[in-house]
């Protein structure tokens, strides 16, 4: 990555207020909905245009009471009577939640944390356990990172993912502590990892539940990150949070998630955000600063991310104003490289330009074509009615809806062709 041009941090993080030189327009509304949500339907874009960026962000950041009710309802849907469910169903429910939620930013951040500490059903083999993991991520996705980390080091699905279902005093597993130290500090000494593994001793996963077996816990002193004490797993998390590198690491990772993955941000640019985040680890405040900023609405951020398969598919689906079957969608996304709850490694997906190779781009175009035909995804898709409802020629409507641009040359007036021509443009691969 090339280092970004030097931005004045004060300007960069100040609230974006449109003016004659930087007008609020459809392109920026589309940009906001791609990053803070999973794309938008035409009415949402129109309302955003009318409300302006900051008022739209009020709604995206703090959607009101209907979001809590929605999530309670989906928690119930996800939990059928008995224990008769699979990770594939859980994946389908999650996608359904992403599509329908009144608080898409919450799901977007849940996805972010899934990639940060990635439980894998290949190891967990338990939908209830993965569901608890996912609920933990969602509960703290826009909350206090300290609480999230405390929950992660007590999560059965993660212990299983790290092949650490039995942390015996004599042979504690180094995988989980290695992640904890390396994912937040960038690097860690083998000595610190070994000592941290001793702190994790005593934790066992039995029948999908995490249990502490006192006699298997190493009660001796451990020396971790320069501190000495009879530490447990929760203490290691606390020690990690006390390191300035942790806040810096998360700010950088969120910058990549919300603003740009093409330019390495200068240390001075991130410094004020790191200082604020290190104080209370308030994720919502950090996300809010980034999303409301001048930098976020500048060319330094515009289309400077590659859409993940989830963002690509949902970006299309949101515009269609109809529901889709998320079981086949989950399979299709897995084929494009993003199998939710089954990431390639515990570090999640590398993302960025790694998303795009000739096979995955061909797969995206095939998915686009199938979604717009209705295919196995939707029986009641009616593109002609959608176009008619919004009263524009199909080519113009879909180009505005999906890429906020003029129609591609040669777009046919048939609604399905017009929609496909809009999303088949390379611009639509970018967020």
């Amino acid at each position, binding site marked *: 990555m090339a280092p970004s041009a030097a931005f004045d941090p004060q300007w960069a993080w100040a609230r974006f207020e449109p003016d004659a030189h930087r007008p609020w327009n459809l392109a920026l509304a589309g940009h906001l909905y791609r990053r803070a949500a999973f794309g938008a339907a035409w009415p949402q874009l129109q309302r955003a245009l009318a409300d302006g960026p900051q008022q739209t962000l009020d709604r995206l950041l703090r959607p009101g009471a209907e979001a809590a009710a929605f999530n309670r309802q989906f928690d119930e849907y996800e939990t059928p009577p008995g224990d008769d469910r699979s990770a594939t169903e859980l994946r389908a429910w999650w996608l359904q939640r992403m599509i329908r939620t009144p608080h898409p930013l919450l799901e977007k951040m849940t996805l972010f944390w899934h990639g940060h500490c990635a439980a894998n059903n290949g190891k967990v083999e338990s939908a209830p356990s993965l569901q608890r993991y996912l609920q933990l991520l969602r509960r703290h996705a826009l909350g206090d990172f300290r609480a999230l980390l405390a929950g992660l080091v007590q999560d059965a699905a993660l212990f299983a993912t790290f092949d650490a279902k039995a942390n015996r005093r004599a042979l504690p597993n*180094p995988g989980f502590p290695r992640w904890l130290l390396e994912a937040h500090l960038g690097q860690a000494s083998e000595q610190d990892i070994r000592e941290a593994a001793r702190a994790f001793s005593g934790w066992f996963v039995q029948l999908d539940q995490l249990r502490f077996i006192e006699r298997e816990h190493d009660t001796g002193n451990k020396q971790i990150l320069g501190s000495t004490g009879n530490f447990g797993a929760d203490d290691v998390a606390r020690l990690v949070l006390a390191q300035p590198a942790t806040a810096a690491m998360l700010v950088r990772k969120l910058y990549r998630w919300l603003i740009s993955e093409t330019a390495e941000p200068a240390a001075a640019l991130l410094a004020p955000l790191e200082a604020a985040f290190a104080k209370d680890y308030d994720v919502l405040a950090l996300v809010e600063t980034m999303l409301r900023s001048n930098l976020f609405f500048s060319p330094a951020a515009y289309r*400077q991310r590659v859409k993940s398969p989830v963002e690509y598919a949902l970006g299309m689906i949101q515009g269609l104003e109809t529901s889709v079957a998320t079981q086949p969608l989950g399979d299709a996304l897995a084929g494009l490289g993003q199998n939710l709850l089954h990431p390639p490694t515990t570090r999640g997906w590398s993302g960025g330009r790694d998303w795009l190779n*000739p096979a995955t781009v061909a797969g995206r175009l095939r998915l*686009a074509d199938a979604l717009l035909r209705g295919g196995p995804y939707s029986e009641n898709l009616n593109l002609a009615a959608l176009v008619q409802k919004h009263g524009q020629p199909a080519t113009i409507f879909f180009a505005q809806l999906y890429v906020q641009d003029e129609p591609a040359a040669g777009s046919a007036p048939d609604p399905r062709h017009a929609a496909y021509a809009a999303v088949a443009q*390379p611009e639509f691969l970018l967020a």
Partner: protein
Amino acid sequence: MKTRREFLKATAKAGALFSFAASAPRLLMRSALALPPGADQTILVVLQLSGGNDGLNTVIPFADDLYHQSRPTLRQVAAQAHRISDQLALHPRMAGFARLFAGGQLAVVQGVGCAKSDRNHPGAMHMWHTAEPQPPGPQTGWLGRAADQLWNPDTANLPAAFVGAIPQPFASNAERVIVPSLRSPRDLVCPPAKAGSAPGDRLLDGARRATSAAQANSVRIENVLKAHAGDYPQYRLADELRTIAQLIRADAGIRVFFTELGGGGIGGFDNHAGQLGNHCSLLEQLSASIAAFARDLQRDRLFDRVVLMTFSEFGRTLHENGRRGTGHGAAAPVFVVGGRAQGGLIGTHPSLADLDQDGQKVHTDFRRIYAELLDRWLGLDSREILGGAYAPVGMLRA
């Protein structure tokens, strides 16, 4: 007559002389003109035999009395088998392999395995999939790491693909590269998309390059699908190898193919009872499918660019178990097929008089084969992928 490849090269040089319709997307035309990515590059095909193939009934020590004494119902007699030395013969149903062996295009590497294998399916398979690098607990497979080394987002190549209907085995799990699972070349055929050519930034240019590469692949694959599809027997493995041959012919740029015989999971090679008929059938599928694949590639002078390697998680016990089957063993032969394979027997046949819990002893670490394929065939750095240095066994011609 010019080969197709020479023609493509000549076309690339003469590019400036051609004129194209003004409406054709510039990037797309450029990539159609230039030699497609990987058109002259070597290709590795890895074939997993799931379940633990019985090496002793594949490469048969027909002259060894211990073999006949230990296998009263499963033993194969020399008269029907295909002799490859004065001691060894290929199974009677492996006529195709015998022809490849006679033509110097099949290397039989003997006594291969993992010394530390615990002889249970998932554990042993995991060793073959990960190559057990240091530090322990890898999250990627050896083919996945090879794909990551081959990956270059700037060229929008496709380093690797799994071909088959089972869930992708762990060997191709990569940290960065998305390795597609393909059932047919049609899975890479896509509806048209315009890559566009207005000045863009690095990311948009990358998206355009990937789009035009997908389009160019798609067009070439459709052309290959219109041509003669090769003569293959009616086996699933044969279909998968045909798919691989078509993708090679289409210059899809894929350097590593991974496929499977036996059905994944514990797999069809795991014959604890009534082994005879099932194993015969699997060996016939293996031999006839690979022979057809070799013939098909030779027809387009592509066989010199391709090496196929088989592996299985372990061999089997020498003695029958009383249910006309065999138990989990240790060492087994690995087959290496290709126009530039060093045909013949490599290494000694592990003695039947000196066994390890009734299995043949391993004298060749499986990673020596991986290392030779990675370093000498794919031109990669095997030490980085395998987490250690391993001497080649000499199964490829210089």
